[in-house]
């Protein structure tokens, strides 16, 4: 461009734009929508950061809609989930994690209260029909996600009502039945054909389903208690924990020993212990190989219940014996009069895998007149023997696919453990249903299933200078003396509490729209735009001028910006 001489060498405003400083750059800033730790930790696949963002914006309905894109049952999981999201929450390293669990519950309750309906993405109706066996969390989730994909779904369950384990094994003190009913009825109203009282192997066979449907999802759960004995000894009047719990939930019957030893470290064990204690059993002992929640306990060694549940159980008088197992049953005839416990711990063995080692000389005796095993359940093989091959669980992959069984998908407690995809919780079952729906859709569309893969965002990637310390909300709990068989023990947050709590979210890995990059770029190379920034942020980098200093990346509070070396 020819240069025009100017009197006294004055220059016109903003003409420096002709000088493209972008050529100076050796690294460029890029937006990296890394996965927040809460999201990565969520077995259901929720993006908590995303829906917390909507809450921060004051749009609870949008938050709920974002949430139910992964999990159709927030009012349920917001009560029963052990919330690994909170354990993973980066905020926990600064002060205390976001009370995600409580906010999920609040959103779930708001949806019920306001009659919000699921947003179904638009799409072409599919003519294929899918059978979903089991109306527990896995089956419900699979059905839901298939409906979202416009498939025809028939949902089978042996019970008269949907809910599976939610209804049969979780006390209403943890999950009030009206909440469950409302959540499920909204789901079933989506157009799912529900066939209750239809048991696989009894009322319908697997082959019939295979013939009638284009795909079959098995969310049959683990309904059969795992075999339990102590050196071959079994009390005559042995009752498994899950059985007792179901019986109490269905007919209100409960044995009333003077002292009971419950063996196990999961929700069934703890729920049953609390139910028995509240029902008036004088001594309730819980013996578990796991450790108790606390700073010194390894995450993979801790009692598999929500810490608050544990705390409430202690409050209510349940006595816990961690890192122990039952070494010997002390019998008088076929009646139990006591148990001998021994201390044990998970230690790395010769092959590096942790195994439980009992320590001789640490035996103690507990005088009880009843022993209840609650060490877990396995799949009831009735009707699915051909798929189980004598195993406890279906050896499915993370998408629920079974080797050599095209068109059959499994999820929930019924599938075997897959690395990175633990199960045994309601939320894990919801996640299984969601992934299976994707797998079924992929199968029926002749493609491979995909799952979102985003890099994690560690605490160190955040810039904490921008976050003020703040206090986590305290939730109301029913006073000890007012706890009974039916009233919910834990309360939810108020709307104001929920909003304040959501504000605490760091927004890990996602743009806060805080303007820092825009404000702090010395080169005016960050441009603010809602329309053009298609990556969920409000900004684009003007690479014509960006010198690649990296200041924006360093000052992004939520680690949304990374520097990427320019190609040579």
């Amino acid at each position, binding site marked *: 461009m020819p240069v025009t001489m100017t*009197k*006294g060498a004055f*220059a016109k*405003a903003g003409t420096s734009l002709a000088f493209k400083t972008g050529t100076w750059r050796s690294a460029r800033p890029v937006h990296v929508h890394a996965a927040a730790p809460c999201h990565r930790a969520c077995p259901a696949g929720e993006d908590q950061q995303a829906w917390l963002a909507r809450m921060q914006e004051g749009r609870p309905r949008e938050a709920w809609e974002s949430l139910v894109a992964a999990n159709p049952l927030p009012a349920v999981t917001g009560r029963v989930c052990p919330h690994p999201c909170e354990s993973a929450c980066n905020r926990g390293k600064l002060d205390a994690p976001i009370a995600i669990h409580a906010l999920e519950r609040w959103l779930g309750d708001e949806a019920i209260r306001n009659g919000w309906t699921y947003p179904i993405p638009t799409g072409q109706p599919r003519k294929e029909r899918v059978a979903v066996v089991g109306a527990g969390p896995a089956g419900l989730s699979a059905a839901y996600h298939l409906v979202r994909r416009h498939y025809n779904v028939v949902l089978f369950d042996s019970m008269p009502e949907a809910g599976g384990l939610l209804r049969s094994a979780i006390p209403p003190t943890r999950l009030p039945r009206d909440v469950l009913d409302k959540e499920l009825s909204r789901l079933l109203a989506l157009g799912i054909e529900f066939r209750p009282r239809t048991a696989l192997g009894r009322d319908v066979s697997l082959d019939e389903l295979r013939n009638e449907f284009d795909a079959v999802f098995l969310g049959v759960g683990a309904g059969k208690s795992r075999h339990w004995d102590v050196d071959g000894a079994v009390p005559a009047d042995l009752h498994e924990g899950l059985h007792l719990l179901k019986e109490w939930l269905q007919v209100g019957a409960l044995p009333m020993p003077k002292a009971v030893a419950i063996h196990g470290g999961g929700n069934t064990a703890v729920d049953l212990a609390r139910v028995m204690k509240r029902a008036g059993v004088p001594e309730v002992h819980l013996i578990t190989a796991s450790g108790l929640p606390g700073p010194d306990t390894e995450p993979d060694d801790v009692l598999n219940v929500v810490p608050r549940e544990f705390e409430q159980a202690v409050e209510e008088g349940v006595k816990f014996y961690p890192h122990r197992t039952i070494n010997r049953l002390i019998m008088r005839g076929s009646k139990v009069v006591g148990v001998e416990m021994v201390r044990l711990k998970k230690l790395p063995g010769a092959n590096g895998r942790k195994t439980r080692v009992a320590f001789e000389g640490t035996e103690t005796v507990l005088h009880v007149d009843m022993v209840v095993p609650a060490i877990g359940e396995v799949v009831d093989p009735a009707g699915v023997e051909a798929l189980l091959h004598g195993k406890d669980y279906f050896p499915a992959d993370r998408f629920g696919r079974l080797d050599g069984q095209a068109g059959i998908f499994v999820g929930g407690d019924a599938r075997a453990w897959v690395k990175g995809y633990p199960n045994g919780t309601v939320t894990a079952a919801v996640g299984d249903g969601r992934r299976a729906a994707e797998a079924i859709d992929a199968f029926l569309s002749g493609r491979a299933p995909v799952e979102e893969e985003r890099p994690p965002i560690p605490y160190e990637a955040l810039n904490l200078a921008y976050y003020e310390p703040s206090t986590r909300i305290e939730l109301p709990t029913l006073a000890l003396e007012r706890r009974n068989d039916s009233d919910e023990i834990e309360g939810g947050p108020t709307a104001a509490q929920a909003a304040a709590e959501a504000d605490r979210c760091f927004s890990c890995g996602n743009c806060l729209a805080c303007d820092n990059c825009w404000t702090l770029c010395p080169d005016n190379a960050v441009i603010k735009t809602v329309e053009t920034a298609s990556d969920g942020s409000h900004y684009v980098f003007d690479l014509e001028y960006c010198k690649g200093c990296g200041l924006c990346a360093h000052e992004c509070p939520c680690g949304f910006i990374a520097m990427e070396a320019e190609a040579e």
Partner: protein
Amino acid sequence: MLEALEGSQAIARAVALCRPQVVAAYPITPQTHIVENISKLVADGRLDTQLVSVESEFSAASVVLGAAAAGSRAYTASSSQGILLMAEVLYNIAGLRLPMVLTCANRALGAPINIWNDHQDSMAVRDSGWIQLHCADNQEAVDTTIQAFRISEATDLPVMVCMDGFVLTHTLETIEMPDHKVVDKFLPPFKFARALDPRNPISLGTLVGPEYFSEIRHAQHKAMTDALETIVEVDRLWEKASGRACGGLFTVEGPADAKVGVLAMGSVVSTFREAMAELPSRKKAKLINLRAFRPFPAAALMAACEGLTDIVVVDRALSPGWGGILGGEVKAVLADMKKPPRVHNVALGLGGRDVPLEAWTAVVAEAKEPAGFRILDLEPAKLEPSDL
């Protein structure tokens, strides 16, 4: 109206007639009376201007720089060390092509400190890019001051009006002060196309690299040489408006057939004029009163020197180790003539030494001496033998 006025007072009145919007100054002898008189005019409500009484000449020059850049007619005055303290800014004002007027009440430079008149100060900033106009008497100083604003605003070049300190600034004499209506008509309100204005935001004072610096300088040089014409034209217009001219670039006075010329600037010209008339002279000589020192009227001067055998250039300043500054320049210019006269160069009246009427005789007589430079009114008896 004819008045008996002290030179400084007359200059203050002339400046006021030009309605400057910003005046900034710092006191220094012998400029002081000008600023005092302007301050009095402001105090009496006879001049509506922003009078900025700064903390140094450096800031005085900087203030008028800023004022001019913001589109205001600006004025300042100084002398001697003050001019040197301004020097850095003076180069800037010219380089930025900012119009304004500065009165230099010419004074010697220290050390040794000397408050009296010579031309060393304005000579020290001769290359700054300012137009420099010298005045033989206070009437010329008044008229030149008014012309200076018009020249400056027509050329976007700053103008330094040089008037001898004390000899003119502190002398009361008969002066015709122009009527304000005449001046208002002659000098319309200042409109500056490049004025700093948020509605048309330009950047003034940019960094210019080697690839363009020569061109920028060339443009400045051309503007200066073009200004020769403007100076003549403005003087003509002023004559039309007021009835008085100041002699354009220079005047040539005395017998037309004289073979000897004397070239001088400033108040000595006035003394020489009277000497030419009063003193019996054996040799005819012309007097060339150089008004425009910058831009230097090279071509016109060559033409005016046609037919001279000798020219004596009177310097009121000294470049130690070289000689007279004006003398050197005249010699350089006349060297291009087909038959250049011999150039004799004398300095006199340094540091306020009185230039008596008889100096004219000595200056003319210098034409008989070999060409070269000397301090004419040196008193050798006062020197140490080793300095002889």
